[in-house]
């Protein structure tokens, strides 16, 4: 007798918000997995047309409240390329510093409040705080430091105001950054402790032969710059992104899914991809910690993304401390430019992975075309594929346990859609 | 009441006090006193009435009939107030019902007499000025009532 099961998760976007999941099972075999992202479309690429290029950092920040800096960074780098300008060298570390703030803020949120509860059977970080107050308090305080850095350098933590095409609106005063040093030194220690806590979690045994994609830079852990690196050994200029990767639309999602153009194959971006490709570029303490924690590379267990995130938090504190200590405001805050027609693209490493922006501007500096490929839409197809591989292991379980297990797997990617950050409603429909 | 007393009284009542002596004399000549017991109806809304009144003693309530709500009290009047001024207009149809709230005395003046007297420009001017002032006061009081002044009144309290 045919047994038809449809597991439906009611609510995920191109960018961030609410998504759902549908699983179709026939005769004990998975016939379909749809990560359904129906976050209302907000049509940013269309809205950007006709806008002054200077507005792009502020507008694209609004794609995501959790990783606005990533959007601002990809936007300004792409637009600076289109304008043919280079920011003064002293500003590079400041942009990395801002990005460190966001990594800390975003990663610690996911690690402590959103993902860790899964390892303790808790509904939320707030509930976990009752049994593990020190760990959660430590996480909140780490996150607060990330937010403080964003506030000092960016004006505020969510949708910072200080990022400008060509640099910054105002450079921080030396005292403003120096005031953070002691707290960041303590934060670094706390971040190491947090990583040790996380590494001790029990991880389900599930590995996949991922095609990891991330930026790679010979001299630094990738944030704002680098070449595109894939697991099959390609090292490409970011300008080739659109030749190598393509977005396809599927009927069950308002988000577009990205695949390798040549093979149609899925790929994975994010902390695991970065760590696997760029372990050598980690700051010394972070790298030593990765060794100490026995984090194997390549690491192909998606559940261990949480450890990769925790190690990246340590890296972000370590790198931030170095920049905070060395900072001297001895540059103009930004490069002046005259608008000119051009096109430019850039990718930076959002907390959740590679974020690609490309723009065309006219000679008045108005945007005529914008393309934005966020990390979650790149991971979406890969997540569906993982679920297809994972489901056979658990199909014997009751429906609600299957749903929960799927949710946990989805959450481990830290997809930038609010529901999947902690909840996927799975609807089982027995046919 | 004899005419001298009436004259004195008219000179003391608020509505008529400011009229010139000659005008007061004309009024005194035609005014009569009417008395109403407490609760007595002086006139009814919609009825015609040919006498204008000035309250000399007591209190009078004005009510209007509102379908579905019955009689609603609009205003109360007291000594010195003008009453039934609609008598001067058109058919003298009353716009409210007047009831004596306590034992009440009015000076009643036939509207026709006033109309005749008003042909004398001196009397007419003095009379109309007085009447306009009284009606303006009445209108102002009505507006203040409309404002529902005391709805949220509080002495010094603010927060």
């Amino acid at each position, binding site marked *: 007798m045919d047994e038809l099961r449809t597991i439906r998760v009611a609510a995920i976007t191109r960018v961030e918000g609410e998504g759902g999941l549908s699983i179709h099972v026939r005769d004990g075999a998975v016939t379909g997995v749809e990560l359904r992202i129906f976050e209302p479309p907000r049509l940013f690429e*269309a809205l950007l047309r006709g806008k*002054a290029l200077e507005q792009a950092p502020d507008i694209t920040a609004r794609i995501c409240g959790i990783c606005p800096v990533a959007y601002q960074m990809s936007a300004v780098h792409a637009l600076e390329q289109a304008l043919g300008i280079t920011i003064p060298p002293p500003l590079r570390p400041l942009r990395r510093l801002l990005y460190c703030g966001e990594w800390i803020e975003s990663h610690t949120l996911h690690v402590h409040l959103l993902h860790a509860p899964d390892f303790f059977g808790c509904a939320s*970080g*707030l509930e976990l705080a009752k049994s593990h107050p020190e760990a959660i308090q430590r996480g909140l305080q780490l996150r607060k430091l990330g937010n403080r850095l964003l506030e000092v350098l960016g004006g505020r933590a969510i949708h910072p105001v200080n990022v400008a095409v060509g640099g910054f609106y105002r450079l921080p005063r030396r005292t403003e950054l120096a005031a953070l040093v002691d707290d960041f030194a303590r934060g670094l220690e706390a971040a190491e402790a947090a990583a040790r806590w996380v590494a001790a979690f029990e991880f389900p045994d599930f590995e996949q032969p991922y095609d990891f994609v991330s930026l790679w830079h010979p001299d630094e852990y990738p944030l704002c710059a680098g070449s595109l690196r894939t697991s099959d050994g390609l090292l490409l200029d970011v300008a080739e992104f659109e030749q190598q990767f393509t977005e396809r639309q599927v009927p069950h999602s308002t988000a577009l899914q990205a695949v390798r153009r040549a093979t149609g194959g899925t790929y994975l971006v994010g902390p695991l991809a970065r760590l696997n490709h760029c372990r050598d570029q980690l700051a010394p303490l972070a790298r030593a910690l990765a060794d100490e924690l026995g984090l194997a590379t390549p690491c192909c267990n998606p559940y261990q993304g949480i450890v990769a995130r925790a190690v990246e938090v340590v890296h972000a504190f370590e790198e931030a401390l170095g920049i905070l200590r060395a900072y001297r405001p001895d540059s103009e805050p930004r490069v002046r430019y005259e608008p000119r027609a051009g096109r430019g693209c850039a990718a930076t490493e959002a907390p959740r992975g590679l974020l690609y922006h490309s723009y065309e501007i006219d000679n008045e500096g108005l945007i005529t075309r914008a393309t934005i490929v966020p990390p979650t839409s790149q991971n979406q197809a890969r997540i569906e594929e993982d679920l297809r591989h994972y489901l056979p292991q658990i199909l014997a379980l009751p429906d609600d346990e299957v749903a929960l297990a799927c949710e946990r797997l989805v959450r481990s990617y830290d997809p930038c859609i609010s529901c999947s950050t902690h909840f996927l409603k799975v609807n089982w429909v027995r046919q | 009441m004899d005419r001298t007393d009436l004259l004195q009284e008219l000179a003391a009542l608020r509505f008529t006090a400011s009229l010139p002596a000659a005008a007061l004399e004309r009024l005194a000549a035609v005014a009569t006193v009417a008395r109403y017991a407490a609760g007595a109806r002086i006139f009814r809304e919609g009825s015609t009435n040919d006498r204008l009144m000035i309250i000399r003693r007591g209190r009078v309530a004005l009510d209007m009939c509102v379908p579905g709500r019955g009689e609603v009290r609009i205003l109360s009047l007291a000594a010195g107030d003008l009453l039934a001024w609609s008598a001067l207009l058109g058919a003298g149809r009353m716009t409210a019902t007047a009831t004596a709230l306590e034992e009440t005395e009015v000076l009643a003046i036939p509207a026709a007499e006033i109309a005749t007297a008003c042909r004398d420009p001196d009397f007419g001017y003095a009379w109309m000025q007085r009447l306009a002032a009284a009606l303006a006061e009445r209108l102002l009081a009505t507006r203040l009532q409309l404002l529902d002044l005391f709805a949220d009144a509080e002495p010094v309290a603010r927060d």
Partner: protein
Amino acid sequence: MAACPRLAVFKFASCDGCQLSLLSLEDELLTVADRLDIVYFLEATSRVEPGPYDIALVEGSITTPDDLARIEQVRRDAKYLVTIGACATAGGIQALRNWGDSAEFLRAVYATPSYIESLATSTPISAHVRVDFELRGCPIDKYQLLEVLQALLAGRRPRLPAHSVCLDCKRRGTVCVVVAQGVPCLGPVTHAGCGAICPSYDRGCYGCYGPCAQPNLASLTAQLGANGATPRETIVQLRSSFNGYAAEIRAESDRLELPPPGGAPHG
């Protein structure tokens, strides 16, 4: 209000930044969770309970047919409905579509627009249901959110000033960027609440908090024009922003007969 009031957080079209503000109350978060029973907050907890709710925080604007039904249910379930942020309060950045051809917008983004269910407009929550309190900002200020929650807990009206950003600039000692640097700034007509961040970073206010009480937009736009500002830099910015759909700004852009803010290049 109940001993431990039930708090729900809902999301419509938005970036999540405003509800994130609640989680960003690092020092107060656990206390908030003690004082309020968080029974629906998809971003933070797997606990999902149906209404009624004492307080519903609503983020995001209404952009899909499904949203229309959902917000009415939220209203029915909520004793106090508080909108958080510019999307929920004024339609958000996505309201720029309201001037454009939304079908064309969809075609610009999606290869197969027929897969997408979307309304032609992005509208604030108050255009659909009664709202008890509107918290401004893109994003909201977390301490203002705390004040709103505290006020509701205490049974009083939240105390949030409706004055211009200028006052906050001066309180923090920031020099006026308009006067000293000739930088266009929407501060004089923008609702306070952010703490006057932008001018302290040497840039003009770009209006995240929407219009202040009784904004004199006509005088400001005249002043921006007199200073030789081009529409690209200034006047259009008023509307092509997160609160462009706010009534006062719509009225002023209509008065100036500005071209539509979004849509085809070169408007």
